[in-house]
């Protein structure tokens, strides 16, 4: 993405809007919504990480949340009363990212030569394995505290500055949710920056080439296995970082937060928004966090107003609407809400893929 001179003022206005956003949200919608905005940023980070794997390199990863879990548990175990360890954030976050990256390579190395759908199912299995271990590693040696999860996790703080306390600056009160907003915003922008830089680099081109036609990419001299592994590791690293931030922000982690449904949710953000397009992925992340929340808050009162009582459980109604929305949006815009202008069809339509496979077999037949 290149910004020309005319877009500079626009950019400045946009930046200013992002900076005051939490206060606007706070005054219009209330404090709880700033917290939701924080979570939205975390999810956007995750979605951007997954976008590298799915959107750029075209590898379908259904267990992405596992890397998030690795980051979160690393943070939780090294910064909570669980083991009485209270490592500083600058040590724990990178370590979580590194571990997630390590797991990414561990999983990717043997499996990345598999065809797309198989990769999907293997990653899905991996995600479940991680979750089951988190769930059960409380006996006979208690490591993860099992289903109860780990609580009283150290809040995020840097060099004596705690993000979980209210600070006053220029006569304005910055509460914990505001501070986390800025912290997460910073990280999100960093991830966006990295994604952009990668997208327009030699590596990014190699990823896209693999996505478009792996055989041709290989024949043009790209070491497809290594490049795919790189995408996987990068994605995992981002997942690990956001996991650590999540643990520190929420102060509590349990296996429940890392179910397959979460992986699916993040994948939906990427695909619904527009794979491979950073703006689209951000949009997807925002929508999928905000809309269900709005629905959760709105559905109960609305039913009260309409029927005088709660007819259906708002939570399941919310999920129902979510499911319906997924179906409708995909039917209406199969390439996502905001596909990259250049690449309307991110992954090959099915026929082309089948065709491709046929063609590999009989390069001559047609």
């Amino acid at each position, binding site marked *: 993405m290149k910004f020309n001179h005319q877009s500079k003022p626009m950019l400045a206005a946009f930046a200013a809007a992002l900076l005051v956003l939490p206060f606007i949200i706070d005054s219009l919608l209330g404090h709880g919504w700033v917290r939701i905005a924080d979570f939205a940023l975390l999810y956007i980070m995750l979605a951007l990480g997954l976008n590298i794997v799915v959107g750029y390199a075209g590898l379908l990863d259904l267990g992405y949340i596992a890397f998030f879990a690795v980051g979160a548990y690393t943070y939780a175990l090294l910064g909570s009363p669980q083991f009485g360890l209270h490592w500083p954030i600058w040590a724990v976050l990178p370590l979580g990212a590194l571990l997630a990256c390590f797991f990414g390579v561990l999983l990717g190395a043997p499996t990345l030569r598999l065809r797309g759908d198989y990769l999907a199912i293997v990653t899905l299995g991996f995600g479940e394995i991680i979750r089951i271990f988190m769930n059960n590693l409380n006996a006979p040696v208690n490591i993860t505290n099992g289903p109860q999860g780990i609580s009283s996790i150290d809040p995020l703080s840097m060099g004596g500055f705690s993000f979980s306390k209210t600070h006053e600056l220029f006569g304005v009160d910055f509460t914990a949710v505001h501070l986390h907003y800025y912290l997460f915003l910073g990280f999100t922008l960093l991830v966006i920056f990295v994604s952009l830089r990668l997208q327009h*680099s030699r590596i990014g081109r190699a990823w896209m080439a693999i996505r478009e036609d792996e055989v041709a990419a290989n024949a*043009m001299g790209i070491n497809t296995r290594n490049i795919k592994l790189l995408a996987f590791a*990068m994605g995992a690293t981002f997942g690990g970082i956001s996991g650590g931030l999540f643990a520190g922000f929420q102060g509590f982690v349990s296996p429940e937060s890392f179910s397959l449904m979460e992986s699916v949710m993040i994948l939906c953000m990427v695909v619904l928004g527009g794979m491979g397009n950073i703006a689209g992925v951000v949009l997807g992340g925002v929508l999928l966090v905000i809309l269900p929340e709005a629905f959760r808050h709105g559905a109960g009162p609305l039913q009260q107003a309409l029927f005088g009582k709660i007819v259906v459980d708002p939570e399941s109604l919310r999920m129902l609407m979510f499911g319906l929305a997924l179906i409708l949006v995909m039917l209406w815009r199969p390439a996502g809400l905001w596909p990259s202008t250049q690449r309307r069809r991110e992954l090959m339509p099915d026929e082309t893929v089948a065709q*491709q496979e046929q063609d590999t077999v009989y390069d001559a037949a047609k």
Partner: protein
Amino acid sequence: MTQPSETLLELSGVCKHFGGLAALSAVSLHIKRGEIYGLIGPNGAGKTTLFNVITGLYQLDEGTFSFDANSYACCKPHLLAQAGIARTFQNIRLFANMTALENVMVGRHVRTHSGIWGALTHNRATCAEERAIAGRAHELLRYVGIHRPSNTLAKNLSYGEQRRLEIARALATEPKLLALDEPVAGMNATETESLKALLQSIRNDGVTVLLIEHDVKLIMGLCDRVAVLDYGKKIAEGKPEDVRRDPAVIAAYLGGEA
């Protein structure tokens, strides 16, 4: 360094089977540096299979081939590209949703080095390299005669342009051997003529060309030597005009598809 031998690619006794079908049986041939070598034969003769073997897409069952004085029995495609073999595909395989320019830039991948760190920091070396990649890619687009805006998506190019783009992408890897699988298939006479000129100038730049083609006129006018495959066997080899009169070849073509 020792004097490079005159032979660039040498196949000896190469066999490739698919189940009971011998797509290649004991094929031996050698290609000299700087020549245009034609490979012809009826449909299903095994020409593309031979390409797939020398570019590492298929592992050969028996025999060996050596390229540029190194012997390869089973080798990954990207290593062969690194060694200097580039190819095009019979049924065009471009990166359809990438621009023409990006397609060629991908070809530069194997001759460039910048990694994640360079991409993130945009350090001097990376920027210079990126510029060089883009510059060379533009050059190659012009060289093969694609005069569209370079940000046209590959899938939106005309058929002839797509074939040329594949050649540009292959040339971007700085090959010693350029292997072309039916590059003029589906082209009209003028397009064929200009592609012929392109191939000649590629050869004049010092790239050896291996050419599969059904167009006899093109083969006759372009190739220094020709080999004929039929049912996986090499049935003739030599100067085009000699091969053309070879009774075995005539029989293969008449029996095959006439």
